[in-house]
């Protein structure tokens, strides 16, 4: 997509929201033509209100945001090809992992994404610029931007403390502040998943946190995991 659109004056800025830094992001972010940067402090959350990945933000030639963060899948992920009933697979993964996947895979399928509409709109904007109906007015960008009540501003400050402590080698002390960010902004998936990952890469239950990825997905409903895309302008 980037290769197709680049000749029309388009660039992709790929931002890895990884508090574990470049080493964590490198295996997934190397070897591309477009810039890939590391956002260890989740600045995209503080500055734009990003609460989940992947989120896309459109910025025009003058540095003006014409679409605030929204779910940005470039393509539909390939369905899982793992055969959970295959004895070889079962032997390799183990009983616990198989049981977990039996729950996870159907939940992933329930998540609401719409890559086709998103990519069509992106192409339209790259071709037509400000004349594209998908380039939103300043009023609509600000209207759509997530509200920031005091608790969410505090959540950003708490996450920043956790990230700072973690990065400076005080991971145990970071947990208190990550937990505080989760309490203050419970709908923020990047704060939760980041903190869980630093303790357990599988984001499963741990002593440090009261919640984990699968428990929260089941409780909140996988169909609510991504906010529905609303590509057409409201105004």
């Amino acid at each position: 997509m980037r290769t197709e659109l680049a000749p029309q004056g388009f660039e992709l800025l790929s931002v890895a929201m990884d508090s574990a830094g470049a080493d964590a992001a490198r295996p997934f972010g190397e070897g591309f033509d477009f810039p890939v940067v590391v956002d260890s402090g989740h600045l995209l959350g503080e500055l734009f209100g990003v609460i989940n990945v992947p989120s896309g933000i459109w910025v025009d030639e003058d540095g003006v945001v014409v679409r605030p963060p929204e779910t940005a899948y470039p393509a539909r992920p390939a369905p899982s090809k793992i055969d959970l009933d295959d004895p070889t697979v079962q032997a390799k993964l183990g009983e616990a992992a198989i049981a977990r996947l039996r729950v996870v895979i159907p939940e992933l399928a329930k998540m609401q994404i719409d890559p086709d509409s998103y990519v069509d709109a992106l192409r339209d904007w790259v071709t037509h610029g400000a004349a594209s109906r998908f380039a939103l007015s300043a009023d609509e960008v600000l209207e759509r931007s997530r509200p920031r009540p005091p608790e969410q501003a505090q959540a950003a400050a708490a996450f920043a403390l956790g990230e700072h402590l973690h990065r400076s080698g005080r991971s145990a002390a970071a947990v208190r502040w990550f937990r505080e960010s989760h309490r203050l902004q419970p709908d923020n998936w990047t704060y939760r998943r980041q903190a869980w990952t630093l303790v357990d890469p599988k984001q499963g239950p741990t002593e440090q946190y009261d919640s984990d990825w699968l428990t929260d997905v089941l409780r909140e409903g996988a169909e609510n995991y991504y906010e529905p895309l609303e590509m057409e302008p409201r105004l």
Partner: protein
Amino acid sequence: MITDTLQVPVDVLSRETGWRVKPVGACRDDVCVPLPEATLTDDLVDLPSFADRLGMPLLHDDEHGLWSLGPQSGGKAMTTVQAPDLVLPTLSGEPFALSSLRGRKVLIVSWASW
């Protein structure tokens, strides 16, 4: 921003938050907010006074002697459509500025290894 002192140099605060504190008040882009006189002394900004006036949270980690100044609250996550001066390191550690892409349409995409 994270700090171990509540008296922060003007240039540090400006670099970290985009707000430049002057005798007239705190200014960012074309917005200026008046500040109590005692907020600025000898190029040092009194953080509690600044944070209170701008509606920013200031959290304190007693044990580690740290404070964290959060973003402005009360409105939207984005207070202007002008993209902020986002500068982040590339995978090899060099700073990369969003502003270096001016003149092109940019799709910022967030992802993560986790």
